[in-house]
């Protein structure tokens, strides 16, 4: 009998199908990788198993016993333990107390802290943590905290341990130590469900791989039968069909729209030289933590530039706030869509949000003009909404992102900074956003497209800059091979 058994798990969010009938069985003592791109449904599935989300349909059994959805407490009772990306430890109390949180040893309602910490010691030992249980949690580094989290899961007698990107903040030796712990645990009969998109470590630590793509289960692989290339192909599937050979529509005859000279904020952002012409898309590729977002935010005035100069259409500018950037016809789409929209405001209201000064006077806002402009861009960008009055929060991710783009069409921006604009957007909407970006450039805008997805960078960029550790380290034509670019980025190719 399998330890964990999921049947036909389905889950939809407004406009997005997150999971389309997932079946999954995991045996005791197995390490199973859950692999997929951003938005493939990994996190949703993990949350469902942990009781943090309720699926639309489906069932879950542990050792043959049905487990109800939607209750983290019930999931824990049935032996499911989860370690999220955002750790859930309470910093100012001891690691021992954290391990036993909610299950303190007590006498007549009085918590016996010493006994509690002693009880925690065995679990800390099981994860190989040689620390006094009395140690304050905020003294620990990220790797040790991760182990405390796992100890906490074990103390709840967990049989299935869910690890969500457990190595995201770990160094190589720390990750190796974590893998040892995982092996120990599986030897004790615990099943581990391991979410990651780092292929080498998946190959190293996992027994079998389940690949998800756009909410669908696209296959299980035994570890012996797959290599990195095969896994990557499965993960990406046909979703990269949009990466057709780049058509070189751009001829570098346009005026220079933006020129940055030595612009930066050392040491976090090393000085950057950048020149983008009208009609040009410059892609910036960088892995997580490479400094992409910092560059984007600095160009838009969200973070200060301490060195260097910036020119827009030949005029020197200095942005200390987004207002100034917007007045200079710069637009910005951030990586976090939720940070760009006011969910309860209507589609039209969100579209004109950066153009309020154009609508009527300070004392009488032009609401009719607002709806008219909204309707115009809804039509122009093919934003799928029943009406311009609909709250933007009810739209699908792709359509929300188009609303953010529409906002900058509305201001007439000539320089667009797009930071990972299609993260978590479903495939079809992605293609539409890409087409829009190309159209904007064709219309004479200068576009800076920052992304951690190499395929996007190559598909969209007329030129490709690579960032690593806060600096631009290389420039490539989009025809360069992925391996070359990847090597420059100093990362592992996903």
């Amino acid at each position, binding site marked *: 009998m399998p330890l964990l058994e999921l049947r036909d798990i389905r889950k939809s969010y407004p406009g997005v199908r997150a999971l389309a009938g997932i079946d999954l069985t995991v045996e005791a003592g197995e390490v199973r990788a859950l692999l997929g791109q951003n938005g493939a449904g990994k996190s949703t599935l993990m949350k469902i198993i942990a009781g943090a989300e309720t699926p639309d349909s489906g069932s879950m059994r542990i050792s043959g016993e049905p487990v109800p959805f939607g209750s983290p407490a019930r999931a824990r009772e049935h032996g499911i333990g989860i370690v999220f990306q955002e750790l859930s430890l309470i910093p100012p109390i001891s690691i021992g107390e954290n391990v036993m949180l909610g299950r303190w040893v007590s006498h007549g309602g009085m918590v016996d802290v010493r006994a509690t910490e002693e009880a925690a010691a065995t679990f800390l030992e099981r994860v190989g943590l040689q620390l006094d249980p009395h140690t304050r949690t905020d003294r620990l580094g990220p790797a040790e905290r991760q182990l405390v989290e796992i100890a906490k899961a074990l103390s709840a007698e967990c049989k299935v341990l869910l690890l969500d990107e457990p190595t995201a903040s770990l160094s190589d030796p720390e990750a190796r130590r974590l893998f040892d712990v995982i092996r120990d645990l599986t030897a004790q009969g615990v099943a581990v469900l391991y979410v990651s998109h780092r292929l080498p470590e998946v190959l190293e630590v996992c027994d079998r791989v389940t690949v998800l793509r756009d909410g669908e289960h696209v296959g299980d692989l035994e570890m012996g039968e797959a290599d990195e290339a095969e896994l990557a192909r499965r993960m990406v599937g046909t979703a990269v069909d949009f990466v057709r050979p780049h058509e070189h529509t751009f001829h570098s005859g346009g005026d220079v729209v933006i020129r940055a000279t030595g612009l930066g904020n050392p040491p976090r952002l090393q000085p950057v030289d950048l020149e983008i012409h009208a009609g040009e898309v410059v892609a910036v590729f960088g892995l997580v933590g490479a400094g992409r977002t910092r560059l984007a935010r600095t160009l838009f005035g969200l973070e200060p530039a301490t060195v260097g100069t910036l020119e827009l259409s030949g005029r020197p500018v200095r942005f200390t706030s987004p207002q100034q950037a917007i007045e200079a016809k710069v637009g910005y789409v951030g990586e976090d869509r939720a*940070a760009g929209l*006011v969910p309860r405001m209507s589609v039209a209201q969100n579209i004109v*949000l950066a153009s*309020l*000064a154009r609508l009527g006077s300070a004392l*009488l*806002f032009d609401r009719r003009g607002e709806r008219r402009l909204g309707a115009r861009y809804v039509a122009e960008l093919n934003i799928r909404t029943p009406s311009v009055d609909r709250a933007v929060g009810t739209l699908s991710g792709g359509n929300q992102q188009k609303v953010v783009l529409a906002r900058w069409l509305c201001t007439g921006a000539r320089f667009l900074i797009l930071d990972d604009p299609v993260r978590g957007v479903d495939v*079809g909407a992605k293609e539409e956003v890409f087409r829009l970006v190309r159209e904007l450039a064709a219309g004479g805008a200068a576009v800076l497209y920052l992304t951690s997805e190499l395929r996007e960078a190559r598909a969209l960029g007329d030129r490709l800059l690579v960032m690593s550790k806060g600096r631009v380290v290389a420039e490539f034509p989009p025809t360069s091979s992925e391996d070359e670019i990847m090597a420059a980025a100093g990362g592992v190719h996903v």
Partner: protein
Amino acid sequence: MSEPVSTGLSATAPAVPAERRRASEARRRIAASGGGVGGAIAILVVLIIAFSIVSPDYLSVGNLVNILRQYAFVLILAVGQTLVIITAGIDLSVAATAALSGSVMGVTYAHMGLPAPVAIGAGLLSGFAVGLLNGLAITMWKVPDIIVTLGSLTAVRGVALVVTDGLPVPDFSQAVEGRRIPDPVAFLATEDIGGVPWIIVVAAACCVVGWYVLNKTRLGRSIVAVGGNREAAHVSGINVNRTKVAVYALSGLFASVGGMMLAGRLNSANALMASGSELDTIAAVVIGGTALFGGEGRISGTVVGVFIMGVLANGLNILGVSDFWQRIVSGAIIVVVVAVDQWRRRRMARR
């Protein structure tokens, strides 16, 4: 169930008949536009009907006007409070500010003998100044709204005590002969026009101003955007700090109008008047369906919220319920109304 597994993008819902879609769209729009107010109105109607059944005297024009007259002061303050709460802030200092403005007006007019317009101007200015300082402390020192206004709740009462020497204004020994409250204020606070007290007209005018700011001006858009998603407002070029300062300054201004009206009604001002009323304004705003965490709210909701509080207090009075029990019932009703509203919202969200 052997429904064929659809691929890619075709995972959208099956086609819904057009008229059903339109109906659900209309329902959603109603919910989005005035759901909170609708719920509060329903509760108001239930309360009025219930009291009318128990006490036949209850439902008379005279009584309703009376309720409004008594609660006009709270309503005036609650208008400013509504704007503040929509930006996801809170102004605990409104009642103290009202007491200060009433006192400043009284002292400048009755003790210092300045002309009525100057005294009224000084009253308005003092409220505006308190609001401005609240806004500046919140935005420049980055102290949470609730802490700043909690501080000014106490400090502003202190200023009012200093201004009045802790004595009711006018004070015998200091007053200019025959002066109490400036005539225009006394007139608006106490006289009627065709059976409608002027103070109700003043409160209504404040509501119109608040509604206009919220719905017809650029500032109003900024208020909703800042409360709905501060970060999004910021990257859209909205000056978040200026919006917050403006809202607190407006709240101070409304509080000063309320404070002067209250002084007019009492025919006297003192530094400790309206103690605790800030909580009434917050309760009224929340009962009226404005989200306590910002981004959503309406002046009409606040009007209904004030009405509910007034109707409740008045009805319990007429029934002869003791003040002790009135407090218990009033407190419980606030929680129940908001609980019902939350339940309704959750149900709507599920659709």
